[in-house]
């Protein structure tokens, strides 16, 4: 490492294909985790709205899952699901649940009762009320949760390289740390941070675009 420049931009240029591929893998793994996590969390949140006593235990269980270190959770799953994408995704999805369930429940709870009464009075069915009234009002808080979950997941996906998967962690560990090659390490970390920032800003924009009425009220 001492005989060469600290950061070799020529390596980055020569390996743009590989780097772009790793970014793609990273995005796919993150997307699956957030998508599946959102689906499960949404079902759990709706269930909790019906059966309140489930809230405490759900938060306790997802909280415990959240505090298990990522490499350990991968490792606990390896005997069952092997060194596979499934192993990674089960763990990554588990980590999104605490944040998403908490935020979705809080978001739906935040819908004013008068609004619900009005919707009922207008003859909305339960599903239509949820889709056309509750969800739009709850959206900003839900998206806030999705943003935190996404940024967290993008960071955690780097760890999947330790169980033989790709993503930007491959640049950090396999072609980086394991070969004492700084350029690859810094490329991986920088791109991971860039993805996190872009996802955060992008989701915020998306939420503003989806809720134009909220914009009017804000200074």
């Amino acid at each position: 490492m001492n005989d060469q420049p600290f950061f070799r931009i020529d390596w980055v240029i020569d390996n743009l294909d590989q780097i772009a591929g790793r970014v793609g893998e990273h995005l796919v793994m993150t997307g699956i985790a957030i998508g599946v996590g959102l689906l499960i969390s949404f079902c759990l949140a709706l269930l909790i709205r019906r059966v309140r006593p489930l809230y405490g235990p759900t938060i306790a269980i997802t909280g415990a899952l959240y505090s298990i270190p990522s490499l350990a959770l991968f490792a606990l799953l390896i005997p069952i699901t092997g060194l596979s994408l499934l192993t990674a995704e089960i763990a990554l999805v588990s980590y999104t649940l605490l944040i998403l369930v908490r935020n979705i429940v809080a978001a739906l709870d935040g819908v004013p009762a008068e609004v619900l009464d009005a919707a009922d009075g207008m003859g909305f069915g339960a599903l239509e009320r949820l889709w056309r009234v509750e969800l739009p009002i709850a959206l900003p808080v839900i998206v806030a949760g999705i943003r935190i979950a996404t940024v967290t997941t993008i960071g955690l996906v780097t760890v999947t390289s330790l169980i033989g998967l790709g993503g930007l962690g491959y640049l950090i560990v396999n072609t980086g740390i394991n070969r004492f090659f700084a350029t690859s390490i810094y490329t991986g970390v920088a791109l991971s941070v860039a993805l996190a920032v872009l996802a955060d800003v992008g989701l915020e924009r998306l939420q503003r675009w989806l809720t134009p009425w909220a914009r009017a009220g804000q200074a």
Partner: protein
Amino acid sequence: MEFLGEVAAWFADPASWEGRNSIPLRLWEHVSLSVTALAMGMLIALPIGLAIGHSGRGARAAVAITNIGRAIPSLGWLGMVLPITLVLFERGGLGFLPALIALVALAIPPIVTNTYAGLREVDRELIDAARGMGMRESRILAAVEVPIALPVILAGIRSSAVQVVATATLAAVVAGGTLGDFILQGIFVRDLPRVFGAALMVAALALATEGLFALLQRLTTSPGLRAGEVGRAS
């Protein structure tokens, strides 16, 4: 079930308990690295958080520290530190040192954020009253602000501690030893009972850390605050 028997056999094997690759040694590496990193992180982060929180100046810096802490992956910290310590210390730059530096960097943001947020949440009227009673600024901080903000500050230390214990597992990638070493070795040589056994210990360690700090938080909350719930500020 047969597999769990193999895991138990790994724990029961006397060879797992002695030598340079033993459970007690790896556990000691894990705990000592985590405790040192958390202590150093607190030493750096608490004064910064207290200064920003008390004066109200530098709030932008606090927000920036929080965001940086959130965006850089924990594995990224380890990766970024390694080339620098290798250049500075050559062989000594591998192992404990880069792991420690990365973990300290990781421990700082949650403590700064929560300390700052905890102090800001203190009712301004209480501080004015303290000032009116003739308390000096340092006394206001120690006798009024910190006791009230303590649950929030401890919540920050708790997040840091859990994150440090978790990331100490990853220190194995920079030859830092720790229980993570069993996991990486085990994956490499396909010794799944070892992988699973070590993962159980790491998970137990993380949950124990979480539990310990939850208890500490409860014990140190001033009785006057206990009526209202105080959550994490991050």
